[in-house]
């Protein structure tokens, strides 16, 4: 996806961003065995070169909701002098990730057609 389009997608329209937050979290956890909240925010920042910044006020409610729905499970470990809460995908979460990614890809394709339609002479 072009960088400028991504910026409009994620930064200018908070509703679209909020709708994609769950998919982003699930996708990241699908690629990594387990992650903690701060790590997720940094990973997203790194992947999108700082274009998308997940706000803390939105991230934790989303993580807790996914945990309550049984899509994520938690693990707590002592790291240095503090406790760290890690999130992992459950089996149900892995299945849901595939569904959510398919939905998002279809949506992106549809939006690209709307924004930049492929003109054809055929009727």
């Amino acid at each position: 996806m072009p960088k400028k389009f991504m910026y409009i997608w994620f930064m200018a329209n908070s509703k679209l961003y909020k709708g994609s937050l769950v998919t982003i979290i699930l996708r990241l956890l699908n690629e990594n065995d387990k992650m903690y909240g701060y790590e997720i925010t940094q990973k997203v920042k790194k992947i999108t070169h700082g274009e998308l910044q997940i706000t803390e006020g939105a991230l934790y409610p989303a993580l807790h909701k996914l945990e309550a729905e049984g899509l994520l499970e938690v693990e707590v470990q002592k790291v240095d002098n503090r406790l760290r809460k890690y999130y992992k995908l459950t089996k149900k979460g892995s299945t849901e990730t595939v569904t959510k990614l398919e939905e998002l890809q279809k949506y992106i394709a549809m939006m690209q057609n709307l924004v930049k339609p492929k003109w054809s002479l055929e009727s």
Partner: protein
Amino acid sequence: MRTVNTQEIAQLYEFTKAHFVEFYDLQTELVDHLANTIESIWETKPQFTFEQARDASFKKFGVFGFMEVVEQRQKVMQKRYLKFLLKELQVWFSLPKLLVTSVLFIAFYLAFSSVIAKHFSIVFYALLIVFGIYKGSILRKQYRLRQKQSHKKWLLEEYIFKQTGVIVLFLITQQYTVRYFLDASFNSVYANMGMALLFTFLYLIVYVAFELLPNKAEALLQQTYPEFSL
């Protein structure tokens, strides 16, 4: 690179508490997040004091601070408590406990079909409220004792031990509604069956919420919070 020390971690726990995060699980998660952000701030701005870096990391939570996180957590835990309650109730509608439920239902039905149905209804409802008040006060005492011993608050624990007050209040406020329906129902078989079913439900809910869930509190808390036993 400078890292957040143990004393500063304790200060961060106090900081979250001062910003209306009462419960330990959420405090722990937010403390780790703040500590990570503070350390990353120190990487680029080593001249920042702990307080300056802490305030800068707190700003990232937006104008409402931790409020949104706390509210969502409360919703999640309310649902979880309800899930545990319904799961326990379900057991009473499958064998072998279904037999006990059936006996209770038949007893209520016979009582509501008798000539002194009105007296029975008052006694049954009063019993429920008296038991609720008595057991509720015991549970609140237990909760206070648990708080003194652990110095940690868990939202689910609060629901298990203090939600009972809400149920008792509901029963007290609804006594006239129930009385009204009881007065209207004593002439019909189906209505009596309906009232017997309602009382069976009420007795089971009170028993599960006031007796079974508090007895299983340790297991439920460990299942919900991995950090509970740490």
